[in-house]
């Protein structure tokens, strides 16, 4: 699946997007964040406080309990500050 990062999550991870294959057992958005956090220092920094990181699956806001099965695109970003 495609993973996108925005704003300071993007800056901390160091890239705007990547293709990943989550291992079996990573079933929810929250579990995906925890798995990503273990991929290296930059990811650990981005997901150090997962409660403040928001997520969207296929361009719709979701909560961390949301299942990721079947997702084509998952995005992680800080709380929004538009308008």
């Amino acid at each position, binding site marked *: 699946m495609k993973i*996108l990062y925005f*704003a300071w999550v993007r800056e901390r991870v160091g890239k705007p997007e990547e293709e990943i294959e989550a291992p079996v057992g990573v079933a929810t958005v929250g579990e995906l964040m925890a798995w990503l956090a273990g991929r290296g220092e930059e990811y650990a920094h981005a997901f150090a406080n997962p409660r403040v990181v928001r997520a*969207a699956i296929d361009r719709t806001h979701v909560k961390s309990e949301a299942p990721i099965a079947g997702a084509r695109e998952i995005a992680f970003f800080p709380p*929004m500050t*538009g*308008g």
Partner: protein
Amino acid sequence: MSIRLQREDFDASAEAAALTRGRTDIGAVVTFTGLCRGTEAGAPIAALTLEYYPGMAEAEIARHVEAANARWQLLGVTVIHRYGRIAPGENIVLVVTAAAHRQAAFAAAEFLMDYLKTRAPFWKSEEHASGTRWVEARETDDAAAERWAPPPGRPEAAQ
């Protein structure tokens, strides 16, 4: 309805005029323009830079425009949100709502702005003399959006 994300500036009065041209059913038009302030928390800023999530930003705004249409029977809506670097005094966002009566136009414009601030995937960074910093979300903005939540038993509205 018209939803546009663009780098370029917009002309609020031209957009409002376009919405009502040739129409005799519209009795009220509310035009809201959000501008870039030159100071934030007492400190001067050189500019804001807006980043957004292409594809989702349009979809999220469209979902809220549809919710506003269903709730207030609007006769026209235009939303324009700029991205990229924006200097103090420049426009950032435009919401124009048209309805038969003023209450619907006012309420829908406020609803759309409250949701744009908290649900549309845009992020602002501020340029200061000392560097750039991401703007933090305000709890007052979340509270402003939450007051539009449907009462229990009517989950179909707003979200």
